[in-house]
């Protein structure tokens, strides 16, 4: 995601990342990882629920897709800190126009089903951004 920050900037959009933690934890870890986007927390999970991102079951956390994604991420050198927050939240991404209307939606069907930066850039190029 970090590598694509100039591409998001070029398209004139703001990017925020939301985590199921309090704001201080989100801010602190984003600082450590040099995340170039605004980092916000949703400790109660209300925002996740409002956007239709519920808590997954065990089958959505541990299945062939999630385990193989984790394996290949590790093989590719991906490292992460000890997870903080509700580990059962499902991921998602939304493009919202400056008129407040939802323009694109991606909701994860399992823990590893998240939009890549390229997916989001492609979506930004395909919608009529307002």
């Amino acid at each position, binding site marked *: 995601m970090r590598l694509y920050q100039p591409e998001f900037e070029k398209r*004139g959009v703001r990017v925020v990342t939301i985590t199921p933690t309090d704001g201080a934890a989100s801010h602190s870890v984003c600082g450590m990882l040099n995340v170039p986007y605004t980092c*916000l927390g949703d400790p109660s999970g209300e925002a996740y629920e409002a956007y239709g991102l519920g808590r997954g079951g065990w089958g959505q956390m541990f299945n062939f897709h999630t385990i193989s994604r984790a394996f290949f991420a590790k093989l590719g050198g991906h490292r992460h800190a000890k997870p903080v927050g509700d580990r059962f939240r499902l991921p998602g991404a939304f493009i919202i126009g400056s008129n407040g209307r939802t323009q694109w939606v991606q909701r994860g069907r399992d823990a590893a089903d998240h939009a890549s930066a390229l997916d989001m850039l492609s979506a930004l190029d395909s919608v009529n951004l307002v």
Partner: protein
Amino acid sequence: MSGNTGVLVGQPALDVTLEKGEGASVRLSEFWKDSPLVAIFMRHLG
């Protein structure tokens, strides 16, 4: 998993309240009022 289907394309986005660092709160609409917004909900932090 929740039965809530959440917002759909074309519908108004929901203006939820989120936490910034140091416990301050902010509304999501603050980030879309001047330009389009990409809101990424992470599975967890770390």
